[in-house]
């Protein structure tokens, strides 16, 4: 009976060791991937990045860099298959669901118009799971923006606005980050899509107070009519690649 606490301690130690070595292995894989990417050896880079993400699925950086490497290699189906398996293995990881959703989004510009709809719909499902698993700025912002891409007839702009308001609440409760300007732009665009131009302008104005040099906000506040419409709609053109690189999150964060 005296050996029990000791054995528990050993088990915990063993598990920590496994975890640590997995993380360490992931980091080493990631470093190898970075080298391969530098040499534009995408096949090798993707292999190492998959290993890195698999070993540390909650690591936002590994998953994001993996998807960016996929975009460069254009092997979108490989990425979808990878995340599909990863989601099965880690159903409770918000980060995995989020990146699975992004993997769908990454494929949209190269897909046919109807496949784009299917991909967008699948992405939305994954973003919702990410929100449900862990409420965060990135989860709400991402799903909110995702709603705004849908044509008006679907009436999803209101859902987008609701999510972006949540993202706004989260960002206001913490230290200011440069990427927070995106919430002001997106939320304003959401109100504009709901035909509430007055509210849209007030959000953009509020954003400009926080980020006085932002060209996108300035453009929205100086333009009107068709010009403003063109500016906003250019940001929601499914044939253009949406920037799903999450490096801002770690480049401008203490986390």
């Amino acid at each position: 009976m005296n050996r029990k606490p000791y054995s528990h301690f050993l088990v915990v130690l063993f598990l920590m060791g496994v975890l640590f070595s997995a993380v360490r292995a992931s980091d080493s894989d990631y470093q190898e991937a970075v080298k391969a990417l530098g040499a534009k050896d995408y096949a090798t880079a993707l292999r190492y990045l998959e290993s890195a993400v698999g070993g540390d699925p909650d690591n936002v950086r590994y998953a994001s860099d993996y998807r960016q490497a996929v975009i460069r290699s254009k092997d979108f189906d490989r990425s979808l298959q990878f995340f599909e398996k990863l989601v099965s293995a880690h159903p409770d990881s918000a980060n995995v669901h989020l990146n699975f959703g992004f993997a769908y989004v990454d494929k949209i510009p190269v897909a046919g118009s109807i496949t784009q709809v299917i991909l967008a719909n699948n992405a939305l499902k994954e973003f919702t799971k990410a929100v449900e698993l862990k409420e965060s700025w990135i989860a709400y912002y991402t799903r909110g923006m995702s709603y705004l891409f849908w044509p008006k007839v679907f009436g999803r702009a209101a859902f987008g606005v609701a999510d972006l308001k949540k993202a706004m609440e989260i960002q206001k409760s913490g230290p200011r980050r440069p990427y927070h300007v995106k919430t002001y732009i997106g939320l304003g665009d959401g109100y504009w899509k709901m035909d509430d131009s007055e509210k849209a302008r007030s959000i953009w104005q509020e954003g400009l107070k926080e980020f006085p040099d932002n060209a996108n906000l300035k453009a929205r506040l100086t333009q009107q009519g068709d010009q403003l419409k063109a500016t906003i709609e250019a940001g929601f053109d499914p044939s253009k690649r949406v920037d799903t690189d999450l490096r801002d999150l770690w480049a401008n964060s203490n986390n």
Partner: protein
Amino acid sequence: MPGQPFRSVLILFIVLLVLESGIAYGAAGPGPEDRQNQRWFEDVTHKAGILSRHHTRRFNNPYAEIMQGYTKLGAAVAVADFDRDGFEDIFVTDSCATCKNHLYHNNGDFTFTDVAEKAGVANGNDEENASSGALWFDFNNDGFPDLLVVRFGHPILYLNLGNGKFRDVTKASGLDRYMNAIKAIAFDYDNDGYVDLFIGSYFQPINIFHPGTPRFFPESFETAKNGGGVTVFHNNKDGTFTDVTEISGIHTTGWTLDLGHGDANNDGFEDLYVANDFGTDRFYVNNGNGTFTDKTESAIGFDTKKGMNVDWGDFDNDGLLDIYVTNITDDYMREGNFLWHNNGNLTFTDISRETGTDDTGWGWAGKFFDYDNDGWLDLYVVNGWVSGGKESYVPDIFEMVTRPGVDFADARNWPPIGNKSLSGYQKKRLFHNENGHIFKDEAARHGLDSTKDGRGIAVADFDNDGRLDLFVTNADDEPFLYRNILPTGAHWIGFLLEGSKSNSAAVGAQIRLKIGKQTYLRYVNGGNGFASQSTNRVHFGLGKNTRIDAIEVRWPSGMKQNLPVLPVDHWYKLVEADTTTNIQPWEPKR
């Protein structure tokens, strides 16, 4: 001098007449500012006696409610001077089971009389057949255009007897087979002197009036290969045709909506572009030996769009024929059209975005024509699928699309459209060509921005005044006849071609005009454009130019003919191998 007052009145009258005609169409047109606001097209539909309207076929089978959303087709128009009186006539299809087709005879004064019954070409519809398209083509080279009516069902080939009447020769011709055809064009692909027939079909050849299976809808929205495709009929020169699809190299089973031919590489042989709905368009290069090679991948790449229309024209006057294809562009599906710029090496580059011609909504026919006679081919595009009630059909279709594992080929999985709208009430576009670089929409200015569900566009000069008029068909609605009343003094020249060694209508013949350093290329096409066939006359706008330096005709036979310098602002009739140097302006018989 008792006659003097009378003579003065006469002179005054003549002066007034001259002045009036000068205002209507003379060199002394209005100033530039006035011109910018003027409307250059007049809707004369009713005034001209065009009183018919189109009726979509309603099916009576278990899938009827579903088919209703995907068969709003059949409003087609084809133009030719069937009685050779010098004025272009108009054949218009209807599609309901009891509806008649119409043959509008041009009375020569911009009025028309429906002579379809008298001519024997009215009966294109019954319980087992629905008219969907029409083509004039002189299959026996007797100089009188014959008429093919393509149908969901069996086509009808009418032989033009030359006395204002037609005889159904379908059975004898070898064309009597079930096809869900929607488009036909005719050109002489092997340059043997007779035009051959290319028929595009939408549904596969199952009886869609009584389908034995529910699996007859497109299997995919982007790569469907279970459509009707293209059938090629070789003209045997004896009034019969032989199906040569297999040996021709034209192998596609897409959901074909339009076909367009043109000589992409100026080698004297006509090439073919196939616009397929629900999938990949196809580009076939004519090998010059009676076969074609599929060059889709290298020429245009594999697209996943909804091709509706093909028209060829040299919009930038670089001596190479370019291609315009409409697709679907709406807020729920942003495909964009194709304006394929011909690179000169059997490859094309889509420059629709750069030129401003990419977004025409749910596009149907799109035609190149020079409406202001400035020497640059403009574009008119009609659009709109179903203009119904306020509710949108888009969420219904997307619900199906996003359902996992759904079998699209099974019609039962498709939601009925009911009274909902899908890309309805769209404004038509008239793109003015700004010197071959960009296009500017002038439809509203000229009153051509109707919101009806447009389908076909026929371009022709119905009053032989050198200004190109328009006939537009609309699904489930009245057509439009727009008279071109361009008031400026822009110059023009036009040609009616007659082959002798080449096919009689000279389909495929090219004319190149040289003015200074600029060369203008136009050609005779055999029916390009969705649900429509325009004039086979060759028209050139010349702008301010009153002198042409050189005129070269390249006949399909291979013969090249250089014409003497001709005065502008006239139509001319050219006969292949005619060595006459004293070519006089052509006038209609009446």
